[in-house]
């Protein structure tokens, strides 16, 4: 059987990375590599995700040096700069416009944690400026953006890691390998449960509260926050974390959690450079606003090999693989199977103990390994475990679901051409014009 792309055993992982991962696991946090061996990172978007997740982790990672901070919200910039200064006794340079950060010759790579509607523009300009990129998931807001990002990455030889860090979590790696080794027999169905983690509950996000539109606070550059998105008057519950509930800025639950779990489904199916051929989405969109994404969703995807992927925001949170001989369920907390023997049988080339040790105390398992995989690949110029093409294809699965739900009809998709069959409006929804003067 072919090895899943990017799914390498720990020993070969260490061999490929010159033993650096092992050294990292054993080294105290203060043992920093020589300055020239560190990756100088600029963080673009330092809200909750960029600051409390990436920055906090990277400040403790001896392979990273924080070179610059950028955000359109002064409060975010100040908080992030304070964290850097507190940890390193050096104030980083701060920017409100990512284009100024990209002009810095000393920045090797950028971590993009902005709202989704900004991902493609920033990533493309970063790659054109010679930077490597770590881009939060979902990679894109629209299918056409993702394809453009892949094209630019390949043209510039950029190393891009998409923030689907479950690919660096041993549980998901193990589950994917077991499925691909047919431990559940011939695979028939995958269910991506996008409900609440740690429960068996669904996630039916309430539709939000209307707030009067008003003047943006002085610390926020609202026009720049909107960027290429359609103009809207400022409202506090449109920006920062809540952006993900508006289709002008994100895709709702299916691109938030779906970008993780559908990504794992694609990986297990060996579809990292392809996708489903039929999509039938049922969504219930709230009719009173302000959130306009599908509060309830159930999307059935059919792959050319006959496997069905069901994506729904019910049944807890995780991915269930069903085959002729049993099932496997994997989440960030558990790896279970219909028969425990399925999990006990050794899997060639995977020593999960070290991953387990490193992942054990992480709030979001796999994150440190995911950052380190990016750093390894920046050095080796190899493709990352969550390479841009796979990130694009996984995001596409989510976007296809949203398009089918919005149009209220089943769709036929050609994953090679990335086109819908005979549906003008569906094809229009693959992209969206940007607000001037922004462009892809």
């Amino acid at each position: 059987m072919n090895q899943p792309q990017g799914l390498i055993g720990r020993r070969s992982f260490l061999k490929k990375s010159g033993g650096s991962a092992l050294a990292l696991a054993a080294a105290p946090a203060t043992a920093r590599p020589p300055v020239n061996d560190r990756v100088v990172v600029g963080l673009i978007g330092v809200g909750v995700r960029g600051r409390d997740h990436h920055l906090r982790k990277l400040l403790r990672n001896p392979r990273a040096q924080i070179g610059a901070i950028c955000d359109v919200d002064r409060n975010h910039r100040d908080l992030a700069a304070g964290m850097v200064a507190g940890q390193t006794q050096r104030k980083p340079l701060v920017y409100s416009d990512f284009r100024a950060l990209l002009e810095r010759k000393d920045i090797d790579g950028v971590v993009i944690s902005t709202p989704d509607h900004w991902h493609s523009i920033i990533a493309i300009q970063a790659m054109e400026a010679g930077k490597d990129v770590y881009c939060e998931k979902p990679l894109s807001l629209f299918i056409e953006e993702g394809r453009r990002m892949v094209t630019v990455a390949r043209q510039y030889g950029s190393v891009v890691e998409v923030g689907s860090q479950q690919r660096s979590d041993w549980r998901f790696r193990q589950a994917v390998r077991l499925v691909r080794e047919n431990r559940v027999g011939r695979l028939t169905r995958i269910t991506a449960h996008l409900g609440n983690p740690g429960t068996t509950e669904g996630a039916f996000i309430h539709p939000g509260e209307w707030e009067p539109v008003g003047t943006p606070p002085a610390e926020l550059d609202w026009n720049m926050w909107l960027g290429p998105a359609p103009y809207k008057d400022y409202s506090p519950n449109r920006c920062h974390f809540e952006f993900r509930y508006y289709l002008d800025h994100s895709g709702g639950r299916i691109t938030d959690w779906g970008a993780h779990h559908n990504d794992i489904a694609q990986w297990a199916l060996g579809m990292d450079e392809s996708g489903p051929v039929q999509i039938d989405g049922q969504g219930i969109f709230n009719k009173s606003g302000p959130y306009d994404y599908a509060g309830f969703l159930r999307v059935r995807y059919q792959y050319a090999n006959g496997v069905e992927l069901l994506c729904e925001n019910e049944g807890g949170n995780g991915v269930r693989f069903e085959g002729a001989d049993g099932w496997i369920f994997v989440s960030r907390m558990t790896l279970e199977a219909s028969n425990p023997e399925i999990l006990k049988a050794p899997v060639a080339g995977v020593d999960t103990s070290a991953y387990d040790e490193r992942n054990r105390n992480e709030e979001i398992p796999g994150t440190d390994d995911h950052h380190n995989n990016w750093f390894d690949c920046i050095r080796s110029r190899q493709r990352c475990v969550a390479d841009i093409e796979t990130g694009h294809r996984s995001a596409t699965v989510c976007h296809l679901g949203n398009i089918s739900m919005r149009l209220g009809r089943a769709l036929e998709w050609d994953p090679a051409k990335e086109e819908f069959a005979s549906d003008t409006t569906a094809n229009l929804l693959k992209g969206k014009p940007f607000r001037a003067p922004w462009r892809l």
Partner: protein
Amino acid sequence: MPAINPAVTQWIGQMGDRDQVVAYFAYHSLEEEVFKVSRPGQTAAQAALAKVLGEALTAEAKPGAGTPGSASFRNNAFLTAAAQQMPEPLHPVRVRTGLARLLGYLSNETAVPFLARALGDLDARETARQALEGNPSERATDALIAALDSPGPDFCAGVIHSLAKRNRAKAAAALRKAARDPQAEIRIAALQGLANIPEPAHDGIIAEATLAASPNERRTAHVARARLAANLQSAGNGPAAERIYRAILAADSPEPQKKAARLALRL
């Protein structure tokens, strides 16, 4: 003519309601209606709905009737003066931008004249421009080219980006003309646009801009040059792409573009 859902007219009016819930409900009900009608094969129903939406988009108020709530975006003297020269629209700006967006989803020939007219509506023109961007009609191309004479470099830059997605001779000609525009924002947008149209002759214009006085223009031109080469390669014109990549290596190009050239030439 197929029957239109009788609620459509009511929803159009409600999109401008001061109650945000009512306005939201109306817009999303219309969007659902548009998506329902957009099923393949329902050409006549799509045209009928586009006509209703388009007429509302361009409807004018009776003289002296006043316009409810339409001044919300007119917060500068230039726009206010310009708006006073325009016919008073019947519907407030929120309704007009919503209608233009919905017409973009229908993207048929019927929608074009309404959207073309809305390009002259200072409040709704940006949404109308975006709606025309995905419309394959030849008349949509003509309307966008005509809009290049409009005031406002940001708006014109958007028009250029829309034209750059239309691989047609007259769109390319308009972009080549825009590349000589006295306003830098427009020249820069034109350089980016020309790079998207795989025409070898565009390299001369872009290469010239790599020597421009403005650093921003030079930087844009260098990136555009590499993008043009990539697009030529994708379009099957390998020799033209190779010539550009070799020129990039020979010139004083930034390192990322030289790296792209080396990768493409496998050097």
